[in-house]
């Protein structure tokens, strides 16, 4: 027993050595983006400020659950990345601290708009459009035409070949749901989804899982964000990216400070950094392909060019409310994912 205690003491001292030795204050960040993106941003911020950042990557759902659970006594300071929608939810519930970064005027219109929808409690850091990705090898093998529009996806050709995440667990999928409802209308959208359900082989838990499955040939078509598709394509997988002809929705990744954060000053520094060209460059360097929100940021060369995509005027203000979300998800559960 004495030995193990020694071991653990040694391990703890090593643990504290693992962080940079020049720690100057601390900051706790929940990261909702992909792990490399989180790690790259953490490293860049630590290197610049010397603040000891502890960052954990969780899915946006887990982050929201944690922020809610801890609302009386928050243990985290900053929420960075992931689909912005849950941040709007948190803002609506009053879980976030309003903060107007000096960088705000440098941001693109959609990012500023996002901040105003969130009542200044969250700010847009990147955007990514929803798209259809298919595995070209499987497509050829099956000898079916490549899908070009949302409407194509309900064709018999793609029976059991499509994956999309479950909107109950994934922000990506909720964005898709809201997009379809905005593109068509309520009734039509759900008729479409019921038809699509016949072609869906699996509702995944995570938003980027469908395109990863498509990349590895586990499914032919995945509905995800286009920047995730680019990442797979860059890795060398036979993925082709389609911007649906009817138009498509998009997500805005946000950054926000948790209400009652213990390291509020450091949190503000982090938000400023995350909105700066320098901070936004970290993602591109880590191979991420979202479109950054700062006009001065360098757009990753491989990023899908948002200007060439037919984007809908996504109504964050309406579709971000708890009321609408409950309505859509309830309808989805009752009409699409029915279990008799």
């Amino acid at each position, binding site marked *: *027993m004495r030995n*193990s*205690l020694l*071991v*653990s003491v040694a*391990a*703890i001292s090593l*643990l504290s*050595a*693992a962080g*940079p*030795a*020049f720690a100057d204050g*601390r900051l*706790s*960040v*929940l990261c909702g983006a*992909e*792990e*490399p993106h989180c*790690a790259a941003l953490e490293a860049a911020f630590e290197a610049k400020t010397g603040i000891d950042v*502890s960052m*954990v990557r969780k*899915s946006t*759902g*887990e982050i*929201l*659950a944690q922020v*809610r659970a*801890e609302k*009386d*006594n928050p*243990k*985290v300071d900053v929420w960075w990345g992931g689909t912005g929608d*849950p941040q709007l939810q948190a803002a609506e519930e009053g879980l976030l601290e309003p903060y107007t970064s000096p960088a705000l005027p440098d941001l693109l219109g959609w990012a500023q708009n996002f901040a105003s929808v969130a009542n200044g409690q969250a700010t847009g850091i990147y955007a990514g459009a929803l798209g259809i990705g298919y595995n070209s090898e499987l497509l050829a093998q099956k000898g079916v035409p490549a899908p070009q529009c949302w409407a194509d996806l309900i064709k018999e050709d793609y029976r*059991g070949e499509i994956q999309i995440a*479950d*909107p*109950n*667990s*994934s*922000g990506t999928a*909720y964005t898709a749901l809201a997009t379809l409802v905005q593109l068509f209308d309520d009734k039509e959208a759900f008729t479409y989804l019921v038809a699509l359900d016949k072609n869906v*082989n*699996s*509702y995944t*838990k995570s938003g*980027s899982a469908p395109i*990863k499955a498509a*990349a*590895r*040939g*586990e*499914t032919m078509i995945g509905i995800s964000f286009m920047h995730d598709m680019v990442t797979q394509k860059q890795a*060398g997988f036979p993925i082709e990216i389609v911007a649906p002809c009817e138009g498509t929705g998009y997500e805005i990744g946000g950054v926000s400070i948790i209400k009652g954060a213990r390291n509020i000053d450091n949190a503000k520094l982090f938000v400023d950094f995350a909105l700066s060209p320098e901070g936004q460059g970290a993602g591109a360097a880590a191979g991420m392909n979202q479109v950054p929100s700062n006009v001065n940021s360098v757009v990753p060369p491989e990023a899908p060019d948002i200007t060439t995509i037919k984007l809908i005027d996504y109504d964050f203000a309406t579709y971000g409310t708890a009321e609408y*979300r409950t309505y859509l*998800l309830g309808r989805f*559960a009752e009409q699409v994912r029915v*279990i*008799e």
Partner: protein
Amino acid sequence: MAKPLTLSAALGLIGYVLLPWFGVEYGIFERDWIDAGGLLSPEGASGLLQTPLAGRFYLLLPGAILMFLLGFARLGKPTAGQQRIALGVTLAGLLVTAAPGFLSRWTGLDLPALGVIREPLGYGAMAALASMFFCATTIWSKLGRGNRDAFVVGAIAFIVALIGIFVFYPLAHVLGSAFSPAGGRSGLESAWHTLTGSDLWSVSCWFGGRACGSAVNSLTLGIMTATSTTFLGLAFALLATRTRFPAKRLLRALAVLPVITPPFVVGLALILLFGRAGSVTQFFADLTGMDAGRWFYGIWGVWLGQTLAFTPIAFLVLVGVVEGVSPSLEEAAQTLRADLGATMRSISLPLFKPGIANAFLLGFIESLADFGNPLVLGGSHGVLSTDIYFAVVGAQADAGRAGVLALILLCMTLGAFHVQRQWLGKANYTTITGKGDSGAHAPLSRAHSFLVHAVTVPWLAFTVIIYVMIFYGSVVKLWGLDHSLTLQHYVSAFGVEWTERGLWWNGRAWDSFWTTISLSAIAAPITAAIGLLTAWLLIRQNFFGKATFEFATMLSFAVPGTVVGVSYILAFNAPPVELTGTGIILVLCFVFRNMPVGVRGGVAAMKQLDPSLDEASLTLGANSFQTLRVVILPLLRPAIVAAIAYSFIRAITSVSAVIFLVTADQNMATAYIIGLVESGEYGVAIAYSSVLILVMLVVVTGVQLLFGKRTLRRENRLGQAQGAIAPTPNQAISEAEHVPAR
């Protein structure tokens, strides 16, 4: 009497004077506390200083009670009346110290003058409470008639209190949230609505429908997995004990591997083999010209993944039973004209019944609680454990639904326990053979031997292939696409750089790696200690309510990890006991999740010790604590080592409970690996897992080498000694069990 009382009261008083009474952000081991003023700040003040610094006069009371106890301890021979008064005062002290916080939490009252405030209790309050608690048990032990050793009474009360706080209190929260009103429905209505939902109980998939309810899926899967793991486990147990299979050491090693494999990893390998693009699926698709489908995702994939993961557990359970059946019974059957096959059917298999029931139960429970395999391999196939997870973290966070699902899961496992008990009845054929029981186990008949080999050898080969693939996956650039060899995943996870500021651990995995190792290393000895203490109480002490006590200690094993995680968040996220976000909650979670293993191990080992050893020590003037320390513990060394090693491994590989409890500061390896898997970084995920496997292997073998050798020799001595003095362990046990008949 005076000494333990003085010590306990003095320690409590030290805590009262020197430790912060309320919870301190980041804890007192970080600079933040000192920077904020340490003990001299109102927030960080000790119990004593709370009055001058924060005007909390009510906090003088615990101090006064501790002083009183210190004075009482100096009384040479207190009368029974005085003791009763002291006990009353101490209990009152416990109440006034602990109750206001709970009152504030449950009723929402805010009465700062009486301490009814929402502040978490800190080190000082904990020390004072523990001190008063042990003072109370010490005084109480002296009050009653009977064999009341202060240490025994304290130990029983301590275990009961721990189980109450860390098993029942969180479970009560799950129960509470299950019946909390939601969405305009009353608590009972909404619970009923969830409970009877077709998304839980639909069986339409059996009749060609798309999907079954998740409760039905969980049950089906549990029974399938329990059956397959028990069958395979029995086959391997027979292979290891009743055949001349040449590579038995390899068998044991392979049995350990899945136990120390982090979740998800095997799932990934299975996808590469059996997924739509997997090599096996493709091979058969090419062969038959059929379309390679997604047949693997869903119940079949999860079943295979679980069978791979849990067969070793069944094997370890059954190998003990198969070895434990007295060979003379089998020999007797043979002398009575039964051939080998008939001996197996008529004698051996029926004698394995308790083992088979145990293995089945374990497989069932593990399958119900499993989280990783359904997540990776389940496709749209929902089971309760994943449903609970998404009820908590999904877009519509629904704690009530999570609570109801958790209750269903709990009922299923408890129901399985009950059925197993009913089925076994009083049948217990565990024939722990002493030295006196010579003879050789009957070998398998040719037909049985063929069957066993036909089942086990391919499965063994399959397991080996999986692990080779896993390792391969960690050294290729992009698994499934670019198979050029590289070490980049290891560098990415565990890179170390030498900079002018010193060593920089720039690998991404280091943070969570050290957290995992240190928290597991802290939890392991505590788990073993509490487990063995409980075992000692169960085997060597008699006290009121022992059967209930035993059930309570085993309960946390039946509670699935997901439920534990949810319950801990619900229970410990708010004052007075606020632990979320700390490493402590993870350690506690490990300790109480794995404690039953320590208890079972300790019980088994202690039954082998002749109880007259304890009695000899007692009659020679040692008290029960000294006896435990000087006589029992040294003899239990192998069990202790095993318990520590096992809890260490379980802590490292656990995921279902942990996923709710990790934070930025305290991230665990498994939670981190899930993130890697989710973002498709299979290479790094597998590299990280391989390192963990290696670390656990090194730790387990290291522990064996350091302590194992000495242990073995001692064990031999013990065996010889007992053999020479006639009472074999068997006799010792039967004697111990028949004490009441004397």
